[in-house]
């Protein structure tokens, strides 16, 4: 007899709790989510904002912590761009990053086409050969790669910065994965129409692959633009050096670095990869299947 009221009490208690949970997950969550997100956005954004402000100031202003833009942007610009030739470094970085991004995308498309739309003996072995390179970061090979590239006579050339990075397992796999999700009827129809594999790639596959191409382009462009150790080793002069290393010329080992031009350089060096990333953000997310398919 005593169990009946208890059961009733439980039932009575459960229903409002579910409501409370639902209410809790919508209304109160919003404000603390907003507070935490504001703080997070501020903390993540602060170093860059600080660098942008510092790039308009001189050392005296920077070290008196004024958070208003100063009058020294033109002077810092002249020092960084004109005197230290930052424009040349930017040009070198652009040439190398664009060449690798385009080249790697093309080679990866070709490899994906071969892996998905062809039958040939030993395919899984070739696939394994490509797959294994996933565990060989260039940094580990840097000593031997340096010897090889110097022996090829590529020291101080764009070739040294471009050719070794033109192929990668990541690219081949992204396209292989993407192509195998494309209906087989398309390739059958293309064959019936007498299309060559390259025509099929260009007219059918590429228009269906812009998301994957965009995702790969972002990764590659950012990766190559931000490369540091390899250009530091293989490029000796200033003529062919990339901007990541060019920033070093704005630092001085002795008494006091002039931080205004250095911060301006850091900001300018970050503009191309950030723009590429923001422009292709949607492709990046869906190419990696990071957004929900709806």
């Amino acid at each position, binding site marked *: 007899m005593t169990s009946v009221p208890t059961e009733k009490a439980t039932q009575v208690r459960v229903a409002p*709790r579910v409501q409370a*949970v639902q209410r809790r997950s919508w209304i109160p*969550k*919003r404000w603390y*989510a*907003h507070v*935490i997100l504001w703080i*997070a956005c501020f903390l*993540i*954004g602060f*170093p*860059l904002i*600080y*660098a942008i402000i510092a790039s308009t100031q001189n050392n005296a202003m*920077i070290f008196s*912590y004024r958070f208003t833009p100063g009058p020294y942007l033109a002077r810092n610009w002249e020092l960084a761009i004109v005197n230290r030739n930052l424009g040349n470094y930017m040009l070198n970085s652009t040439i190398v990053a664009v060449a690798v991004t385009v080249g790697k995308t093309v*080679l*990866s498309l070709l490899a994906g086409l*071969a*892996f998905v*739309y*062809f039958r040939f*003996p030993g395919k*899984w072995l070739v696939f*394994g*050969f*490509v797959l*294994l*390179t*996933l565990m*060989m*970061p260039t*940094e580990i*090979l*840097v*000593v*031997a*790669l*340096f*010897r*090889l590239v110097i022996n090829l006579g590529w020291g101080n050339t764009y070739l040294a910065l471009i050719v070794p990075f033109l*192929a990668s397992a990541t690219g*081949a*796999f992204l396209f292989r994965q993407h192509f195998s999700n494309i209906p*087989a009827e398309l*390739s*059958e129809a293309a064959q019936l129409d007498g299309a060559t*594999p390259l025509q099929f790639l260009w007219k059918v596959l590429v228009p269906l692959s812009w998301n994957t191409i965009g995702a790969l382009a972002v990764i590659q462009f*950012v990766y190559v633009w*931000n490369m540091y*150790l390899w250009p530091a*080793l293989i490029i000796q002069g200033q003529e062919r050096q990339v901007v*990541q290393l060019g920033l070093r010329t704005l630092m001085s080992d002795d008494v006091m670095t002039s931080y205004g031009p250095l911060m301006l*350089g850091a900001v300018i060096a*970050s503009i191309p990869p950030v723009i590429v990333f*923001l422009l292709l*953000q949607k492709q990046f997310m869906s190419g990696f*299947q*990071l957004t*929900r398919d709806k």
Partner: protein
Amino acid sequence: MSGLVPVLIIVLAAIFGAVYMANVFRRYRRNIAVGGLVGAASATAGALLVMLPLNFCTFEPERQTIDRVFGFLLLAIGVGLVLWPVNWFIRQRFEGNPLFATQTQPGAFKGWLTPALLLLPTLAILAIFLYYPIFDTFSLSVLLARLGARRSVFVCVDNFTSLVTDPSYHNTVIITLFISFAIVIIGLALGLLVASMAYQPITGARIYRTLLIWPYAISPAVAGVIFLLLFNPAGGFINYVLSNTFGFSVPWLQDPTAARWAIIATSVWKSMGFNILFYIAGLQNVPNDLKESAAIDGANALQRFWYVTFPLLSPITFFLIITNMTYAFFETFATIDNLTRGGPLNATTTMMYRIYQIGFVNQDLGKAAAQSIVLFVMVIGLTVLQFRSTGSRVTYGA
């Protein structure tokens, strides 16, 4: 070295490989003899891969115990290096993994010349600029070779065994692991916290997400340059805030411990965007009905997170651990080179930074190659872990 010892060692490796692969074939109910043969062949190949360049020098009578122990370790690495991929591929094929199916789509083009031409550039570049340098790193690691010098001397495994007794190298390994673990733990915890706020369908979610993930595009070098100013011990902004609010300042780039934390903070900032990005994606894929039924069972928000959401995120967490570890091993180089240059007193000299110093500042290629191989073995360990988990599925989509 000639005589019975090399033969014995090869036979030993072959027997191990034969037993191992025969067992794998038995489990999949395939021909045990074929498995034994494949295992023996791959183990022999692996043993020869490391021992031929060495000419079995670790087992010469005048060598010390440490060399012999190291010889067996190398033997194990060599056998594993060949046996593990062979084993992995064979099991994928036995299990019918579509990734390795020879038959592809029904509408496949025919002929072998076209695919060969299509793959030629990729395979050539991978062979010349990845496989050959790996091979060359192994052969360099047993030499006393200097940058630019024509002659080199064979020194057996001295470049490796000298690391075992070198306290400064131990220190480098400890620093690398400390910095790596700190970056992984702090970066993932903060990333998950922010992502669990940002994945919700709140007002301005897209703007928040963009403002949170853009540091992905910033380079580790630029991060180092910006934080060089922020951490400036004399007048940097961080010390300005610290001394005004707490009344003390930290000699960030002069004190060994503080310098390590400066590197960790910079790297966490830089890799935060990536962590948030992947956690947001992971959180969006957690089914709502699971959380709701947990809520009906009386679980509070924290319990729901810990017992429902977090376990479902484990593939993403695992993938992020691997990518953050790789970042900490290699990409931190540029941050360190701009912020501390490995100092003070080598306090921020990671394994990668040391390879650079030994190989290109001291110009000792043999030692640098040997240290590269130690790092290589660690990376292979990480990759094996990644392949064994669901991590690989996360990377390339389901």
